[in-house]
């Protein structure tokens, strides 16, 4: 297979709230128009709050199926309810019906219904959008419907659209803001990544989560770098994190001090580097330059 000329950088953290989105936005600010941005934290997306994007395209996202019972055909035999492992079949006065919140879309009920009264219909799971940020990047972002399933598939969709735009517009880098955790949306965001940036902080929780997410990244054999945010909050744990990074050949991109300036910037809808007199500029610039050189 030909190596892809577009490089993909995925920012994740394991633990939430370590500063993924704020830092991804700062990198996007530095990269200016050279990148396509993708917000893959689809069930709690925040990148648009710093980027004030103008939506250029919006499309519904369908994923999987949902069973539907035709009441006119239903003979009330109850076989569907017997086989459903998800307690998604409700008996009402007239006939059986589907609890859409519980239905997994497996179709078992539709296969065994003797009256063929159950069909599978495509499930609307959210929307994805292509927008232009106030810095003129293209941003691909999405919204999973409340309580939605298949966030992994929506992440996949966002990444595919971002890759297509990058090819069409000859952008070299796709910068992906990922989800917390190590489950399906994170695994989807890692597929095809060229570099993973782990954003952590010196707390026992974040360090524990960092090790788990690193083990996951290792299963994919992707090059990894790390940024320690709020580094002065606990210097003992910072030291331990740095030892862990060295042991595992993870490049340390930067250490940033605990500072409420990130929140102050967020309140204005700014990224941190737009703030006057920010002390973070050199460290974040150095981190971004290291990311660029790791990609080459």
């Amino acid at each position, binding site marked *: 297979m030909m190596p892809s000329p577009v490089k993909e950088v995925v920012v994740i953290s394991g633990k939430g709230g370590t500063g993924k989105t704020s830092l991804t936005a700062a990198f996007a600010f530095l990269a200016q128009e050279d990148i396509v941005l993708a917000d893959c934290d689809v069930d709690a997306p925040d990148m648009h709050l710093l980027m004030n994007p103008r939506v250029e395209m919006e499309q519904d996202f369908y994923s999987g199926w949902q069973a539907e019972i035709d009441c006119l055909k239903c003979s009330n035999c109850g076989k569907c309810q017997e086989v459903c492992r998800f307690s998604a079949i409700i008996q009402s006065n007239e006939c059986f019906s589907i609890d859409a919140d519980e239905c997994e879309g497996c179709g078992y009920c539709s296969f065994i219904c003797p009256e063929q009264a159950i069909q599978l219909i495509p499930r609307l799971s959210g929307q994805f959008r292509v927008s232009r940020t106030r810095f003129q990047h293209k941003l691909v972002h999405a919204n999973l419907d409340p309580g939605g399933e298949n966030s992994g598939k929506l992440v996949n969709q966002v990444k595919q659209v971002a890759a297509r735009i990058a090819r069409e517009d000859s952008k070299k880098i796709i910068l992906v803001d990922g989800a917390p955790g190590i489950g399906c949306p994170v695994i989807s965001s890692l597929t095809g990544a060229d570099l993973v940036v782990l954003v952590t902080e010196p707390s026992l929780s974040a360090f524990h*989560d960092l090790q788990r997410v690193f083990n996951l990244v290792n299963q994919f054999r992707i090059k990894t770098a790390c940024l320690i945010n709020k580094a002065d909050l606990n210097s003992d744990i910072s030291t331990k994190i740095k030892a862990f990074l060295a042991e595992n050949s993870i490049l340390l991109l930067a250490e940033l001090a605990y500072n409420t300036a990130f929140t102050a910037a967020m309140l204005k809808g700014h990224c941190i580097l737009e703030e006057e007199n920010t002390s973070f500029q050199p460290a974040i610039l150095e981190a971004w330059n290291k990311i660029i050189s790791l990609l080459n």
Partner: protein
Amino acid sequence: MKIAIASGKGGTGKTTLSVNLASWLALQDKVVLVDLDTEEPNSGIFLKLPLIRSIIGVKPVPVWQSDNCLHCGKCQGYCQFHAIISLPSEVLVFPKLCHSCYACSELCPASALPMLNEKIGKIDHFARENLTFIEGKLDVGQEMAVPLIKQAITYTESQSVNSEWLIFDSPPGNACPMIEATKVADFIILISEPTPFGLYDLSLSVQSLRKLNRNFGVVINREGIGNSDLERYCLDEDIPVIARIPQSRLIAESYSAGKLVYHEDNDFLSSLKQIKDFLQNDAFSC
């Protein structure tokens, strides 16, 4: 009373509130705390209780029996999750994609796909005096947290007959893991911070919970760090604000070292008292 502590945005204080509330309530009452953030469980770091029992977290998946197989290919047609590929000479099963619906297994004409349990994580049970702690931990590389969350809840309910408080520390976000973890709770505490990210992600959680007709209220953490939009949103939406925990570097430092904070920080302690008072007196009148 069953309480879930959740938040749309990560890092807003779910675990801090869960472990402190559970430990403080356990000074008087019997309490069970369950960490359902199975992808990244952190409550155990703060509690350090002795382990009583460890059980394997499983989900049932089909296992191909070559001797029985007729190679009819129906199993692949039944599976909506692409977890089965039927090749001319063998059937491949991808357990990580399986949703355990049993369709392939029970509809196979030759009984060639019996369901067997596959390990996806573990459930650890810790206890000392009044406090029981149950932790679900997903194996790294597993995609689906929901089956383990369900199993941890079922296990908890079998173990917590005489407890006054059951507290579920939920996973972040607004997708299926959060919904599953809050499903059995009588009341859900959404903890957020007064920032644009905190407000936006809270509003998504509110949509999810309202759609399901759930009882919930808000705890504002790091009060003073941001603006008053979150407070105004709760007022406009008629959502009770149960307590406000001030922004404090001391709390952040205690958290970083894995320490409980309620006996060091009076503001935090009074927030816990307000939360208990609210749950006992007001939670079901709103």
